């Protein structure tokens, strides 16, 4: 059966974004993820809710995975798929670093992830954001949504919660913000998405990537910049 026939026969594309593509019982990182670069690095942010249907399987999960010393990945979609992809990319990057004797670039990491997502698009449900720092481009962000396209962007948002904050981020983002302003923007935007998206919630995890070291941070659920506790 051709891909088109299968698409027409299966009506699941009429269902919501999260239930389509998930196998029964599979766990989804219905999510809000975000990454914004600044001069000398990048800030990644994510919520922490993992759901199976209406049951929250993990309310404090870590959706920001490390791919190499200064390259990280925000994961959304099927938790199993994104974990497997992250493991592959981490492996390929470490092999490459040994062969070339240099740290890999964010562009290379994004390319490897893109190839895996595109070549296996039939079987995967994964939307990722690759962000990090390298000595060629500095801080950079690549968005790789469901189909396996790969676009370098001045900032990126993804996951089911991102749809609710496009307007907010478009209005708040400017070029040339410094590290603190970027982290505040990420936390504020993710908090707003968590307030409206049922599949996003919990705490906000952020990772700030800089050449001299990475910093992990989390904002507890009762200290969100916006939300029920903060109203």
């Amino acid at each position, binding site marked *: 059966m051709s891909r088109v026939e299968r698409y027409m026969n299966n009506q699941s594309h009429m269902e919501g974004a999260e239930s389509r593509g998930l196998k029964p019982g599979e766990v989804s990182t219905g999510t809000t993820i975000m990454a914004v670069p600044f001069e000398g690095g990048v800030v990644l942010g994510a919520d922490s809710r993992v759901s199976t249907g209406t049951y929250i399987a993990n309310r404090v999960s870590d959706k920001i995975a490390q791919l190499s010393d200064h390259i990280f990945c925000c994961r959304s979609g099927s938790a199993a798929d994104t974990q497997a992809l992250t493991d592959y990319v981490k492996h390929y990057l470490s092999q490459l670093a040994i062969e070339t004797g240099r740290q890999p670039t964010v562009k290379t990491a994004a390319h490897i992830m893109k*190839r895996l997502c595109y070549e296996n698009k039939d079987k995967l449900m994964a939307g990722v954001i690759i962000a990090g720092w390298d000595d060629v481009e500095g801080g950079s962000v690549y968005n790789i949504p469901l189909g396996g396209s790969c676009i370098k962007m001045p900032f990126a948002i993804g996951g089911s919660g991102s749809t609710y904050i496009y307007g907010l981020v478009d209005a708040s983002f400017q070029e040339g913000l410094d590290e603190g302003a970027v982290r505040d923007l990420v936390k504020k935007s993710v908090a707003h998405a968590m307030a409206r998206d049922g599949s996003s919630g919990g705490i906000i995890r952020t990772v700030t990537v800089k050449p001299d070291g990475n910093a992990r941070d989390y904002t507890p659920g009762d200290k969100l910049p916006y939300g029920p506790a903060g109203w």
Partner: protein
Amino acid sequence: MASSGSGYDLSSSTFSPDGRIFQVEYANKAVENAGTCIGIQCTDGVVMGVTKPLLHKMLLANSGKRIHTVSDTCGIAMTGFVPDGRQVINRGRDEATSYKETYGQSISPQVLSDRCATFVHYFTLHGSLRPFGATVVIGGYNAETKKHSLHMVEPNGVAFQYYACAAGKGRQPAKTELEKLELHKTPVTCEEAVKQIVRIIHMLHDANKDKPFELELSWICEATQWKHAGVPQATQKAAVEWAKEQLEEEEEDESDDDDDEDEMEE
């Protein structure tokens, strides 16, 4: 004369009692009988040149090339058995395209030379295969580090990075001339390197004994935006004229010295 293999030279997969693999040494001999190949790393790029003897008058001079482009930013020159060299270069091309597909980045000359070296070495390990009778010289540009470099892979699979290298029939005198230039202390520009390669090749060529030859020259430099390209004909012609002048001056200097010696002294 080389020692006889006495039975240890029948296969690549046999060591001799004194720890040599004769088949690989014989492969080196094939390279030593072939046209000279010279590579020079310059301040602003890499230059490579290979001589090609023109065996018959009926041959079209520009065909049967010995320098090939392997990716945008890398070129490979070869000497020795030409078909063997072609195989290594084809493998280099495969490695370059698969690297680009997997990593989204042009292959760097360091990684390319490692991959070619591994490939060449593989053929020195098996009884059913013979080693390549060709040495390849790799010149390229690393787009990430923004540095250019020169490498050479020999039939035994050894690969080094060089300031300047030579292989083939005239490699010993060529290496002597290159060392005189002290390129590791005072590197030259690509334009200057082209002239030096032409001069060295013409110096080695004996018009009476050797067949007429064609010199292929290529470079990767800022002027070509770091793409591997043939050295333009105009530059080559100018280099040949300069080289011939240099060599005539040197001959005159030598004959002046001889005149002094003839004078009787009282």
